[in-house]
């Protein structure tokens, strides 16, 4: 008996509901996942249906009715929470089920079908009654049933814009609500029976009066279709989610217009399907196509009441009993654990103590009147002016008294335009910089108790340098970020030495943050961010003065002001986009916070809320319209997500890194239609999946991706994009990935896709290789990748016909080099390119050397040695098995067939034979096929959502096992250790395959 089963799945979740204030239920494929949501614990996975996806469910205290497709199940909550397999409860309804609702008696339930019929079902699956609205039988995309005190109302959303509201028991029409344009995608009635809310293809939400059928108000805001709605907060608010991946809340009290209260960006790229609200806690949950279960604290900015405070100088002046001048403004500030210290444009230093909520004037300092720069560190504030004057004030923990105070009058520089500070072991390091290129770059080491200068460092200032941020490591190296995406590294034990410069890391904006990540032997990792949105992980060797960017990426949009690893080792970025300040979880791709503040051009500071620098709670201080705002960012009361999800759109290709990452864990990469590549890992035993990064280098939907060795990955897509990525797995913080080289492009057609590629390494150390690329315009190319100058050089190009090419392999047979191509015309085409690549040297069936030709490469008109018809239309997938003097090609086609063809040499030419075909190997397109177990097994996936394993016998394939997969648009797979499978499409599944188990 073989064991062939799914271990885990991340994919579209179509419905989420809170059961009570601790339990959340989420529908994932045919399963219900049960979460203790506050502690982020998955407590049960219960299979409800054989194959169908669960589209929705209704719950009461004791019971649950679930539906999806034509399936319905009525079960008890206790079974749902405790059993793992309830497939036997699955019942079939003749038509698609649009909604199910439990009746008030807690016994029966109402089942609304897409033809506007309601079946009244008893718990044994007996249809007690069938109710319908006479002559209204056209198809529905949506609907709901509302049990009110005195009646049961059916709300049917038609495809023609109308909403039929009818009374279930009398089967009488109550209203036909007209106003929407296009299909209705959701309709619901408020608990008090007063309102109907609906949404449609027209992207509007409409509120109707159930009593008189009048339209009450309309809400606009969603930029794509809206899929789900719910009333909450005593029917005063609505929550909506949709195709644009946002979740919005609305106030319904106003006449004619629904007022947007909040917008949350909750899912990746496409489709948020469902939402629910836990009203006591005011927590919302959403579920999306990306598989994510997101929780939203709807009181994030009001849960403790003090999240947002603002002060004008005038209001501060009133409590201080001093007068601020008319044109006096706040020039600088810092938040400490006790409160805030700020300075005005006239040198007034003021203090806000949080526990007493009082303002004090500390001192008026004329020296800081016209120009001041403010820095805070521990409990010390540091002010400086442009003449070299520095004032340091150290406060007691409660902020009530100044325990030490120091004034420095420095004269190293002609003018001071920037002053920054960083912790230097236990001490502080203050840097001073002037605009004069001939001045030094100054650093002062300050003892934190006495505030005395311990040491002064005078460095030669590099050219083209304007400092922007600092970091110190190993008690010896001062890293200073600058404009032009440059970092200068000063050696604190050798001031004479010129700084080691890292220049132009990214296109050119200012470096906004440098954060030490980890060190290992001589390697020191730093996270370096750029205002233009790029971030990098850079490995620096101080002794050799070398560096390597091991990770790089760009944020989705906006300005990037900084980044750090949080306590869960997730990479968090922050900055501004349009009028918002944001914090974003870059690893998993969700917003942690957004605060309307007016945008990037203002004074602002992100400080730690409790002064501990724990990176968990923050105080965002900013000025908007001359007002000082304090925005407290607390730890969330519920986890941000219960599942992070993967891709919002189809996964087009999957590749597993051959070498294990950890004991039972392997890294893998996914390439998606959403244009990102994700680097992830999975566990062979548990099936657990964790994603690390979403790389945004491609601008079009991905075609292919493959690890060509344990160090390199190649990915390709439209716009002729092909990138060589370097993988680094030697650090403990994370695996890292960055683009190493980019393939040159030729045409300017955005449609020109690189459909597939294949590589052959040249030398033993697997760094240089040749790569063949094939294109949607029938072009074939061969390139040489030379690791020393890190470039792709064209060796050869030709064209097959005019049709699109789909698959390619480079093959060496008897010391000759062949190119095998599979186009959309269903042929296998073989070219002998040995003589085309004159400089190629092959021995022992290995490519041992190749040189780039001196003359420019022109289009070759080489004719194929053979064109063998094997499929009726496009060959979608291909795998090749080599033996000494033959190779066998296994192909899967758009024509449902799996075929085997054999190629060998005869009289110096390649001959081929079409040896086997199963024309009904699947009921739709076969999208991936792969040999495993030493070529004795073939795995195939197809769009009919069946995963099949075939036994490879002498020139034929015998079906061994086939399983249904819940992954729709099944299109990619990979296998590792002959026993672990990844299946991708709309979602991703981990499977286990073992023929020897009992």
């Amino acid at each position, binding site marked *: 008996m073989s064991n062939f089963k799914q271990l885990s799945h991340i994919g579209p979740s179509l419905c989420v509901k809170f059961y009570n204030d601790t339990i959340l239920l989420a529908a994932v494929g045919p399963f219900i996942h049960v979460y203790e949501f506050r502690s982020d614990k998955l407590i049960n996975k219960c299979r409800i249906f054989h194959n169908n996806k669960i589209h929705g469910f209704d719950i009461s205290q004791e019971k649950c009715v679930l539906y999806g497709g034509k399936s319905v199940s009525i079960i008890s909550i206790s079974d749902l929470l405790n059993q793992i397999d309830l497939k036997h409860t699955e019942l079939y309804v003749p038509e698609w089920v649009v909604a199910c609702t439990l009746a008030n008696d807690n016994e029966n339930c109402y089942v609304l079908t897409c033809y506007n019929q309601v079946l009244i079902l008893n718990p044994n699956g007996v249809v007690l009654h069938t109710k319908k609205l006479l002559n209204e039988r056209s198809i529905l995309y949506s609907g709901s049933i509302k049990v009110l005190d005195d009646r049961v109302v059916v709300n049917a959303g038609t495809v023609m814009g109308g909403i039929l509201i009818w009374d279930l028991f009398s089967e009488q029409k109550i209203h036909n609500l007209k106003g929407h344009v296009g299909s209705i995608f959701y309709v619901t009635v408020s608990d008090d029976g007063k309102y109907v809310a609906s949404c449609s*293809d027209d992207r509007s939400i409409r509120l109707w009066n159930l009593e008189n059928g009048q339209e009450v108000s309309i809400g606009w805001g969603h930029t794509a279709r809206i899929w789900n709605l719910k009333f909450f907060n005593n029917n005063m608010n609505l929550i909506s989610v949709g195709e644009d991946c946002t979740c919005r809340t609305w106030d319904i009290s106003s006449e004619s217009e629904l007022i947007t209260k909040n917008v949350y960006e909750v899912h990746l790229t496409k489709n948020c399907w469902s939402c629910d609200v836990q009203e006591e806690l005011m927590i919302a949950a959403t579920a999306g196509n990306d598989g994510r279960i997101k929780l939203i604290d709807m009181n994030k900015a009001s849960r403790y009441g003090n999240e947002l405070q603002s002060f004008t100088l005038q209001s501060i002046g009133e409590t201080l009993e001093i007068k601020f001048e008319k044109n006096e403004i706040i020039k600088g500030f810092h938040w400490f654990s006790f409160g805030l210290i700020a300075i005005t444009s006239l040198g007034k230093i003021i203090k806000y103590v949080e526990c007493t909520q009082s303002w004090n004037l500390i001192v008026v300092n004329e020296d800081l009147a016209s120009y001041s720069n403010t820095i805070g560190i521990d409990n010390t504030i540091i002010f400086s002016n442009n003449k070299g004057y520095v004032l340091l004030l150290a406060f007691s923990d409660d902020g009530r008294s100044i325990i030490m105070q120091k004034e420095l009058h420095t004269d190293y520089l002609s003018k001071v335009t920037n002053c920054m500070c960083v912790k230097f072991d236990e001490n502080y390091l203050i840097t001073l910089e002037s605009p004069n290129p001939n001045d030094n770059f100054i650093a002062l080491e300050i003892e934190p108790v006495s505030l005395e200068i311990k040491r002064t460092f005078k460095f030669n200032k590099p050219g083209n340098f304007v400092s922007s941020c600092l970091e110190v490591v190993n008690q010896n190296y001062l890293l200073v970020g600058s404009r032009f995406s440059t970092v200068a590294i000063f050696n604190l034990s050798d001031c004479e030495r010129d700084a080691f410069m890292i220049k132009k890391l990214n296109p050119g904006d200012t470096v906004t943050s440098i954060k030490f990540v980890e060190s290992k032997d001589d390697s020191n990792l730093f996270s370096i961010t750029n205002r233009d949105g790029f971030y990098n992980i850079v490995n620096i060797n101080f002794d050799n003065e070398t560096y390597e960017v091991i990770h790089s990426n760009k944020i989705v949009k906006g300005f990037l002001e900084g980044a750090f690893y949080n306590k869960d080792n997730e990479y968090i970025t922050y900055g501004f986009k349009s009028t918002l300040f944001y914090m974003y979880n870059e690893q998993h791709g969700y917003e942690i916070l957004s605060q309307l503040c007016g945008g990037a051009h203002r004074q602002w500071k992100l400080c730690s809320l409790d002064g501990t620098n724990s990176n968990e709670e923050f105080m965002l201080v900013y000025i908007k319209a001359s007002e000082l705002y304090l925005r407290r960012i607390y730890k969330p009361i519920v986890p941000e997500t219960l599942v992070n999800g993967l891709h919002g759109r189809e996964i087009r290709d999957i590749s597993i890194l051959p070498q294990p990452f950890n004991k039972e864990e392997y890294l893998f990469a996914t390439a998606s239609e959403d244009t990102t590549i994700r680097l992830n890992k999975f566990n062979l035993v548990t099936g657990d999946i964790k994603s690390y990064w979403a790389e945004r280098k491609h601008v079009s939907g991905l075609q292919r991706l493959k690890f060509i060795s344990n160090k390199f990955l190649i990915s390709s897509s439209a716009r002729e994009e092909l990138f060589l990525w370097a993988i680094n797995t030697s650090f403990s913080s994370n695996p890292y990935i960055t683009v190493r080289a980019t393939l040159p492009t030729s045409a300017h057609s955005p449609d020109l896709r690189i459909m597939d590629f294949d590589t052959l390494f040249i030398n033993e150390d697997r760094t240089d290789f040749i790569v063949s690329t094939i294109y949607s315009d029938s072009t074939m190319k061969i390139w040489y990748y030379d690791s020393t100058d890190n470039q792709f050089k064209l060796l050869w190009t030709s064209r097959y016909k*005019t049709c699109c090419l789909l698959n390619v392999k480079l093959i060496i047979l008897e010391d000759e080099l062949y190119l095998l191509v599979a186009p959309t015309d269903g042929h296998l085409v073989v070219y002998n390119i040995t003589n085309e690549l004159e400089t190629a040297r092959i021995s022992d069936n290995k490519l041992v050397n190749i040189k780039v030709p001196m003359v420019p490469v022109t289009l070759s008109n080489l004719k194929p040695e053979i064109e063998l018809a094997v499929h009726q239309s496009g060959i979608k997938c291909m795998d090749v098995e080599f033996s000494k003097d033959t190779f066998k090609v296994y192909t899967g086609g758009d024509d449902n067939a799996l075929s085997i063809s054999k190629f060998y040499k005869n009289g110096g030419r390649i001959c081929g034979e079409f040896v086997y075909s199963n024309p009904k190997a699947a009921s739709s397109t076969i999208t991936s096929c792969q040999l495993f177990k030493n070529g004795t097994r073939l795995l195939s996936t197809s769009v009919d959502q069946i995963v099949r394993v075939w036994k490879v016998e002498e020139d034929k394939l015998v079906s061994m096992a086939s399983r249904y997969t819940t992954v729709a648009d099944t299109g990619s797979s990979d296998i590792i250790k002959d026993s672990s499978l990844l299946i991708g499409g709309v979602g991703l599944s981990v499977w286990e395959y073992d023929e020897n188990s009992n």
Partner: protein
Amino acid sequence: MGKSSKDKRDLYYRKAKEQGYRARSAFKLLQLNDEFHFLDDETNLKRVVDLCAAPGSWSQVLSRKMFTESKGNLDGKKIVAVDLQPMSPIENVTTLQADITHPETLSKILHLFGNEKADFVCSDGAPDVTGLHDLDEYVQQQLIMSALQLTTCILKKNGTFVAKIFRGRDIDMLYSQLGYLFEKVICAKPKSSRGTSLEAFIVCLGYNPPSNWEPKLDLNKSVEEFFSGCSLGRLKISDDNKLSNWKIEERDIAEFMSCGGLDSVDSDATYHFDEDDTSNVKKPALVSLDPIQSPTNPPYKKALELKRKGKLTRAV
């Protein structure tokens, strides 16, 4: 909406424009006919129904084949085209704006034919997709079942039925159902249909319903009920009113056929139109590429307007 730049680079789009077709879909029907020749019977092809016909390129093909290019007798020939959307007139085609899932549509068509049966029924219908694959495939199959319902009432014995399908997870159930009504069911994919899309066409030849079954449309009966007498309606509520439990359903894989010949344009390929083009594709004349389909009026027109005015930004 007008032409997108992607359309402009599409060779079938250009060909459609050149040959005066309203949509590139015309080539799908033409290529299907190249293989099956169901439109080439000059004498016996008289009455034809084009379901889900807007903007009308299939009707144009039918009109040309049956009238303009026909050398035979034109007497009694008739084409009826039905769509939810209005269609601008096409010579020799009677258009009907109606929902094909609505039972009354049948009597309207029958009336237009003077109660005579049709020789050929086709449907290129597709609903708006939601992104929920199972729902989209179901709705598509319901559209096919509605078309099939009409077909069984109107198609003469031995007639041909052609309809668009999505080859998703339950397509083999549909194949098996069709097997009860037609002599031969083939899944055909024209070269003009993109290889990356799930779209294909069922070509059902030799209409031959079970002899003991009489199709009868009833306004209040479901499609399942309609077909229940001929082994097509699989899911019935049993006589004791109990819903059925899960069981393995009958499935069948239809023969696949690629249509359009090796030399026809590949809809997955990229063709170049720029000056420095080195391909040996015969370049279509650079006609002015006005939209070939009349501009549609999407339901979200108002939302687009608001967006253009900057009213849909994230203000909170």
